[in-house]
């Protein structure tokens, strides 16, 4: 067996205790399946001892491994019946299996690296022209879009002639007059709409409604009528003001 000292490489070149163990195992020059674990333990412990004598600084995991191997060695040497669980044979087998696996991957890595690799052994074109995807726009536009656009341009740019549209309206005075007269005839609560002129629609109907409402507010302010509404957006009711004695007292 070669002396462990023949492995003169510094610890920095080992990737941990398992790596060192594998290197030592390979010095036994046998298949990893037939390796003597006891001899390997001896090799490792001797190597660590040698390093200590040289006052090399050892990383903790190398020392942990040394301690574990020392334990394994003593267990392997114990009489059979005194063996603890798990058996030292099993521990030794585990170690052997781990070394085999590491070795297998190390060899696989080397074989992988030795393959014909692109850029080292085989080459692809330096500057391929490339395949082009040409996007061809299909424009979506309808005749309506076209004439609408034209209409907008003309509407936007033609000299604008301002014409004040004559809109049919009910004036506020008219509404006050009308509501004031009609509410006198109404004894009970009557909806606002009942005070509107009939037969109107469109802008005139809207104007009449708005003016009549404002007229009602004005008449209520004058104390000529009362307004009641159950809630927001509920119908608005009007009736002629009934003078109440209590109200008079407060004033």
């Amino acid at each position, binding site marked *: 067996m070669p002396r462990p000292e023949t492995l003169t490489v510094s610890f920095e070149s080992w990737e941990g205790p398992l790596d060192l163990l594998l290197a030592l195992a390979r010095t036994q020059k046998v298949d990893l399946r037939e390796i003597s674990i006891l001899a390997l333990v001896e090799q490792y412990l001797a190597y660590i001892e040698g390093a200590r004598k040289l006052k090399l600084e050892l990383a903790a995991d190398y020392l942990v491994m040394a301690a574990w191997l020392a334990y394994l060695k003593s267990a392997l040497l114990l009489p059979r019946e005194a063996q603890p669980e798990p058996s030292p044979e099993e521990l030794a087998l585990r170690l052997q299996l781990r070394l085999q696996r590491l070795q297998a991957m190390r060899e696989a890595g080397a074989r992988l690296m030795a393959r014909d690799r692109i850029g080292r052994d085989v080459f692809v074109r330096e500057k391929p022209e490339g395949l082009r995807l040409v*996007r*061809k*726009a299909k424009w979506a536009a*309808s*005749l309506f879009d076209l*004439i609408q656009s034209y209409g907008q341009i*003309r*509407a936007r*740019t*033609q000299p604008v002639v301002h014409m004040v549209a004559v809109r049919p309206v009910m004036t506020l005075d008219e509404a006050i007059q009308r509501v004031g007269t009609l509410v006198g005839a109404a004894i009970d609560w009557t909806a606002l709409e009942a005070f509107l002129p009939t037969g109107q629609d469109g802008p005139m109907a809207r104007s009449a409604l708005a003016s009549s409402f404002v007229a009602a507010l004005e008449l209520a302010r004058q104390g000529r009528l009362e307004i009641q509404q159950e809630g927001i957006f509920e119908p608005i009711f009007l009736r002629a003001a009934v003078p109440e004695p209590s109200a008079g007292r407060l004033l």
Partner: protein
Amino acid sequence: MEEPDDFLRAVEAVLFVSEQPLTLTELKLHVGEAGDLPSVLATLSDHYAGRGINLVERGGRWHFETAADLAHILRREKDETRKLSRAAMETLAIIAYHEPVSRAEIEAIRGVQVAKGTLDVLMEAGWVRPAGRREVPGRPLIYATTLEFLSHFGLSSRRDLPGIDDLRAAGLLDPVDLALEGLGAQSVVENDEEEA
């Protein structure tokens, strides 16, 4: 087919990976002098004639290129439907109603400058074409619509375009404020429906 020898294979591979066409001298730097380069190039060139890739010589330099008749395959076209921008739509409408018009005239009608890309888009779409020059100072280019324009918009001639009176009748010439009022009323109705 004859078994290619290593010299020929080397020439083939060097031409394949090269970034640019190679002269005989440059080729020799790689493949050496072990063979008759001009004859090998001729053999290779024969071999590739009629294939998808051809070996060609241009001005004393050799390179591989794809066969010219396959160009359409290497550029794959994909249709994408896109909406014409408002500027493009308006420009197209002005050309259609007023053709032939110069760019300056289009701008005068639109009241906005016409970006350079706008006319390009319309020409790329195949709807607008340059139609000569206006014989005025500066001889500006004038534009007109194409037959493709008519067929795309389903018109048999430009006379089919609705006239100003038709546009007015359709409400398309409504002054903007009234149009807005209409929109406002509409949106109120919609809101009411949502609340209900």
